[in-house]
């Protein structure tokens, strides 16, 4: 007997409001921090645009520190008085190699341009205004603030389920599941893109870039102390190259992003590229400021496959929920339309060949496709990365083992395709409670290989619910009728049997989260070979009018 209680006890409103209040406060705090940081840089947007002349423009090293310095000198007139400026922009005055080069290209020596002058202090001027794109980062604390504000509103106005009419409640649907999988996909893809996809694609593209002689200016492994005592490392490298007689600087060893604890390959890279070494770099033909020393990806990139795997699960879940049978609206009786249409089949009678839920061919093809995609990706990574995988072998090893497991399943299903094939015919496409179902089965193929055949009528309840972030499904069998249990191959090959559907049971019921399922299970034991194992869904209808239960 199902426990009949409404599981709708509301959380304390005070606690809920406090919880979301913390969200709101954190969001507001970080928003203010960001505004406090960005606002001074954004002030140049209120300054006056004024003609200027560039006197000097060059890229300089930043005293051995990370990044490049732009040496800039320009002059401008304000109220008839001459002023000179050296500031490129408000805020950070160091640039990465590509950025510094672009600034120098944009403001070459002798060029006439515009600068932005502070009208209240004309000695203060900049050449570039801060990008307004940076303000998009406010979206992050903005989301926190939104969640907090909406959470507080919902908490304070929340009405317990028991205080609301059941007919006014929202139906359980698949939207929550879709949003869950969408978030899973977006987060996974969002992390995998910068960690794996983007570096990988760039590396592949850069392989075709022109090779240009370059000189290493400096190289070292930079150590970053972590908050928990550990250290991570990055490569700090600078080099110089010429395109069309013009000098450019680069600071990118490869396309890997971020730091990691892997120090060996970085040390090796630095030892192979000491300061003063004449070597080759690859330069983007469409943007000479865009260059790289090595197109080999570091081992850390393979860890980007982990969020990629989560993104695939999210994508699968999203597609599955979009194609799910539960999306088809149930009719008023809770029986999906295709089932009610079978009323007609019941009325007209007539035998129907039952279709199994999964055939060995379908499972084989599904597994094969999945296995080919999965193993293809793993093989491509191993083939391209070769010995450079480093610590990434651990991650890839796990994925490769999963791939082997999938292929074992493919072989198993392939063998199952050569089993004897049953054709099961029912006296009707749908059978009402209290009626007798006549089953006819017939095998084609080598039936002698099968040593034991069992056919059962089965039924179970199926309840799906959320536990935390998981969707859990529980089942409970309510009927198990043995229709056939034989070991004689002559009896196995074909035959018929009658089974009465008890009138006192529940008919098939199909709602989004709760179901009553009836089916025929056929299982044939084949020694030293995959068994014959098929399930045939059965639609059990309500009792026919005028039927009296015994």
């Amino acid at each position, binding site marked *: *007997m*199902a*426990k*009949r*209680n*409404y599981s709708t006890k509301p959380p304390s409103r005070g606690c809920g409001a406090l919880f979301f209040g913390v969200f709101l406060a954190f969001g507001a705090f970080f928003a203010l921090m960001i505004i406090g940081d960005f606002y001074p840089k954004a002030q140049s947007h209120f300054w006056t645009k004024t003609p200027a002349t560039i006197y000097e423009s060059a890229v300089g090293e930043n005293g051995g520190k990370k990044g490049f310095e732009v040496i800039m000198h320009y002059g401008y007139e304000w109220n008839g008085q001459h002023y000179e400026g050296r500031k490129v922009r408000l805020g950070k005055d160091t640039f990465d190699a590509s950025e510094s080069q672009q600034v120098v290209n944009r403001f070459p020596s002798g060029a006439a341009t515009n600068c932005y002058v502070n009208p209240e202090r004309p000695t203060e001027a900049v050449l570039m205004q801060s990008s307004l794109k940076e303000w998009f980062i406010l979206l992050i604390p903005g989301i926190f603030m939104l969640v907090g504000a909406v959470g507080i509103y919902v908490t304070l106005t929340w009405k317990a389920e028991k205080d*609301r*009419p*059941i*007919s*006014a*409640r929202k*139906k*359980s649907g698949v939207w929550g599941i879709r949003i869950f999988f969408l978030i899973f996909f977006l987060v996974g893809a969002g992390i995998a893109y910068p960690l794996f996809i983007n570096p990988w694609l760039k590396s592949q593209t850069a392989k075709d870039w022109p090779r240009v002689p370059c000189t290493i200016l400096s190289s070292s492994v930079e150590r970053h102390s972590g908050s928990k005592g550990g250290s991570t490392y990055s490569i700090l490298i600078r080099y110089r190259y010429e395109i069309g007689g013009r000098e450019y600087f680069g600071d990118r060893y490869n396309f890997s992003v971020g730091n990691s604890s892997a120090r060996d390959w970085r040390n090796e890279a630095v030892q192979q590229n000491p300061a003063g070494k004449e070597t080759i770099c690859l330069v983007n033909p469409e943007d000479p400021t865009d260059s790289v020393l090595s197109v080999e990806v570091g081992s850390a990139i393979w860890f980007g496959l982990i969020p990629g795997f989560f993104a695939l699960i999210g994508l699968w879940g999203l597609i599955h929920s979009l194609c799910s049978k539960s999306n088809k609206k*149930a009719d*008023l*009786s*809770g*029986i999906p339309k295709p089932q009610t249409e079978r009323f007609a089949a019941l009325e007209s009678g007539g035998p129907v060949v039952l279709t199994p*839920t*999964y055939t060995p061919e379908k499972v084989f093809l599904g597994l094969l496709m999945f296995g080919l995609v999965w193993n293809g990706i793993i093989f491509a990574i191993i083939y391209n990365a070769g010995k450079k995988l480093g610590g990434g072998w651990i991650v890839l090893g796990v994925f490769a083992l999963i791939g082997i497991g999938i292929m074992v399943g493919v072989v198993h299903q392939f063998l199952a395709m050569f089993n004897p094939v049953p054709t099961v015919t029912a006296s009707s496409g749908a059978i009402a409670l209290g009626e007798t179902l006549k089953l006819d089965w017939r095998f084609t193929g080598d039936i002698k290989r099968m040593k034991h055949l*069992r056919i*059962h009528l*089965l039924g*179970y*309840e*199926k*309840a*799906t*619910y*959320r536990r935390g972030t998981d969707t859990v499904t*529980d*089942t*409970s*069998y*309510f*009927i*198990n009728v043995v229709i056939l249990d034989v070991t004689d191959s002559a009896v196995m090959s074909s035959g018929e049997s009658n089974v009465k559907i008890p009138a*006192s*049971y*529940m*008919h098939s*019921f199909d*709602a*989004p*989260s*709760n179901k*009553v*399922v009836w089916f025929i*299970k056929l*299982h044939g034991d084949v020694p030293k070979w995959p*068994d014959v*194992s098929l*399930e045939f869904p059965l639609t059990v*209808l*309500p*009792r026919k*009018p005028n*039927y009296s*239960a015994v």
Partner: protein
Amino acid sequence: MIRLGLQDHRTNFRPGETIEGAALWECPKAPKRAEVRLLWFTQGKGTTDTETVAREEFSNPLPGDTRTFTFTVPEAPYSFSGRLIALIWAVELVLEDEDEFQRISITVTPDGQEVSIPSVEKPDLPGLATR
């Protein structure tokens, strides 16, 4: 004050039968909307599923009013109770914007008794797709 009653206090119905009842309310001002609904919902381990199968809205409701209604009971689903799921039929009277309501649970089966689903051991058959 809000009241809902079924004729002869009946709560067991067979498919195809008629549910007759009356709704009564006394409010300080006339409700914007007054409606009776025939519905089923699930209880138990799974997330609640619900379906309103019929509704009757009372036109021009007064602050104090009494109205009658009738519904025809659909053929399915039956009221049932199992180890995981129970399906319950109900008639609801809802006033205003769902702020006030009254509900009566009923049973819908061919013999007037809720179907009780037993529980059996999971069949000892290899390769069952469902656990």
